[in-house]
């Protein structure tokens, strides 16, 4: 970077291009991730009635816990938005704080999800119980895996922010992770309505 600054204007322009390219690339990645989730949703819809005389979601799922997790995830999406606002104001501490809050909320979401899975397994609904549960665990679990990766990634960005402050590079990284975080939120809305709400109703 130091070297870049010593050069003419066009080089900074080059760097700027790099960052916007990466952001564009990430949008495309999210399209592929939409396809990935769409395939899993389709699988779930095809298999949702194939319970092999075993338990169904409505018997075992505790909606209160799910509503709390949903609320937590929605809040974390909101706080990651606040992080972005702080960043645009140039407020590094606010940025780090709100990112950390988002990551912690994400962590509690995962904690609740793991607890839910343990509860379900205890009740006799394992991934090998029936096609329904295979599709359930895979769809919900894939979302959970995405959130978990997001948490690690967010932590890494927080450390980088602490070390380097708000630079074009860290700015782009924060933009991308917040995009990702909102995206997972949107996917969760679909999971919530298709897997949980429709199941209980």
């Amino acid at each position, binding site marked *: 970077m130091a070297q870049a600054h010593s050069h003419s204007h066009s080089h900074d322009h080059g760097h700027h291009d790099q960052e916007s*390219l990466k952001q564009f690339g990430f949008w495309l990645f999210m399209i*592929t991730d939409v*396809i990935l989730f769409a395939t899993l949703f389709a699988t779930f819809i095809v298999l949702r009635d194939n319970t092999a005389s075993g338990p169904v979601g409505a018997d075992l799922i505790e909606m209160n816990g799910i509503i709390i997790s949903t609320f937590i995830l929605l809040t974390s999406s909101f706080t990651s938005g606040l992080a972005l606002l702080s960043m645009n104001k140039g407020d590094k501490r606010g940025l780090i704080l709100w990112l950390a809050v988002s990551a912690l909320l994400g962590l509690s979401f995962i904690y609740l999800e793991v607890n839910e899975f343990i509860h379900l397994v205890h009740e006799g609904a394992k991934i090998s119980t029936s096609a329904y549960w295979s599709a359930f665990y*895979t769809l919900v679990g894939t979302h959970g895996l995405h959130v978990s990766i997001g948490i690690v990634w967010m932590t*890494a960005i927080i450390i*980088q922010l602490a070390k380097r402050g708000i630079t074009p*590079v860290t700015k782009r990284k924060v933009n991308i992770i917040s995009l990702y975080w909102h995206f997972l939120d949107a996917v969760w809305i679909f999971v919530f309505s298709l897997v949980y709400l429709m199941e209980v109703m």
Partner: protein
Amino acid sequence: MLDTVKEFASEFFVTGDPLILGAQVSIALALVAIVFVLTYFKKWRWLWTEWLTTVDHKKIGIMYIICSILMLFRGGVDALLMRVQLAVPNLEFLHADHYNAIFTTHGVIMILFMAMPLMFGLFNIIVPLQLGARDVAFPFLNSLSFWLFFAGAMLFNLSFVIGGSPDAGWLAYPPLSGIEGSPGVGQDFYIWGIQISGIGSLASGINFVVTILKMRAPGMKLMKMPMFSWSVLASSVTIMFAFPILTVTLFLLFLDRYLGAHFFTVDAGGNPMMYLNLIWMWGHPEVYIVILPAFGIFSEVVATFSKKKIFGYKSMVFALMSISFFSFFTWAHHFFTMGSGANVNAFFAVTTMIIAIPTGVKVFNWLFTMYRGKLSFPTPMLWAVAFIPCFVVGGMTGVMLSVAPADFQFHNSYFLIAHFHQVLIGGVVFGYFAGLYYWWPKMFGFKLHEGLGKWAFWFWNIGFYVCFMPQYALGLMGMTRRFNEYNFDMGWQPLNVVSTVGAFLMGIAFIFQVWQIAHSIRFLKKDNSGDNWGQGRTLEWSTASPAPFYNFARIPQVVAQDDWWEKQQRRERGEAEPAEVAAAEAAPLEPIHMPKNSGIPIIMSGFWFLAGFGFVWDWKWMIVLGLAGVAVTMLARSFNYNDDYYVPVEEIERIEAAAARGAN
């Protein structure tokens, strides 16, 4: 102790087959030889810094091509073994289990580990040059894509000597590919080999879409972009939409096998037919992914060697994009015989036929590019011209197969086999060969020997027809694919013998090509001037051959569709350059911003390999180690801010001067 080791080894290594034992020995010897040569000539450091860690799109492209040629050899040997087995009724050359493994690996290798890397190789080498860019959008990701492909290919090929090859067919339909149908580890090698390389392919797809949409030289509007780049865009968009489906499908099959899930099992509510749907939702677009770039290559080659603009540019672009779109709505034509009812079959029959329309238009446009042209016939053009009748026949038999009620008689017969080999060899392979011969001087600075190339061409072509025309007839005689033997009284033998002869003719053609490459490297003169064919049309011919690592000392200013050709025309006519071109060329050199090499992609892919290998054998420690390694290398990449540098002006001047000397 010794007994447990023995027991492990007999399960771990494939034993008891002399053919495989021979392969094991020769692999071991080859490895020793490579290590020895590298050590003796002190080439390890060179290999690491120049190749294994490179992020240069041209070098990555060359590595892709080398791998694909090796894979072509392996897939070709598989094919010859099958043809030998089928030449004589009830022959006891390959046992059923071995035969089943061979047709499975032949299919997987030819599509995923031969055609795909050859395609990505050409994408890599040509697209940035053709766009007037210094590299792809994400050079690091590009390197990662290659190494993921490599790790996946190695994992898949390893099953040949360790654990046993998969043997449930190239698309591995459950329940046969489930844990009950295929209890061995071969199917796990299949899943992880394809999965790991598939992630790389997906990343490449994104990479090239961004490159093409965002990195074109100033002045190159989308509708001035060369046809090959258009075809790469069409193919890459298709990759983006199709490959996530493959990722999910393989993952679900893995869960069935590893955790006892019930996606595709026959019991507990699983639905094997869902697998057929999912795998073909990827599989059908996949064949268009590999054929579209071949269409692009033909457009370039035909225009170049006709010395004429491509005919119907807008039609061509529209045709490419509509083929890519419609490829997502035809998947069920691969199983008309599932009995989904007349409505479903009628719908997919018609969508399949619709694809024939833009494809037909493309053929006419190529023909009319040659019409009123000045045709010369060096090897790339030979392949392009041979492609047209071959692909027309392949397309026509494809239309015949799309007629759903007729397909009830063609399905899974040798008629089908002949059809898809005709479009894949006559279309994809001929196309990529045309591209390889055409752009070879751009990669290495010398052409391939024309005489030997013509021998290879004729052997390939005649071999192709001799091999596959009889298979159409065999299909109508009721011969089903994947039979490892048949009775004499079926009357299938004579045509099978003919077909086997044809296969060996293609084998000879391959030897000619290897000879051609060796001969050309040894004896042919370097020609570093950019426009090796003397009639290039697009930007890749405007820079030296091989291009310097930064591609262009100054980013070119584009004014026309065939920019380099038009520039030569202006020069011949003695016209002045347009103002913006003149300004761009007169601008002083500036330091060039380049990405630094990185060891992370190869190391991360090594960890993916470990994780995959661990999953295959269910060795938990290795799975944990592999996945942890992947995570750590990803974080290492995230924390590394020192990944670029500037090439100083003096160095650019030195390299440009040397290139100018070399060209004279």
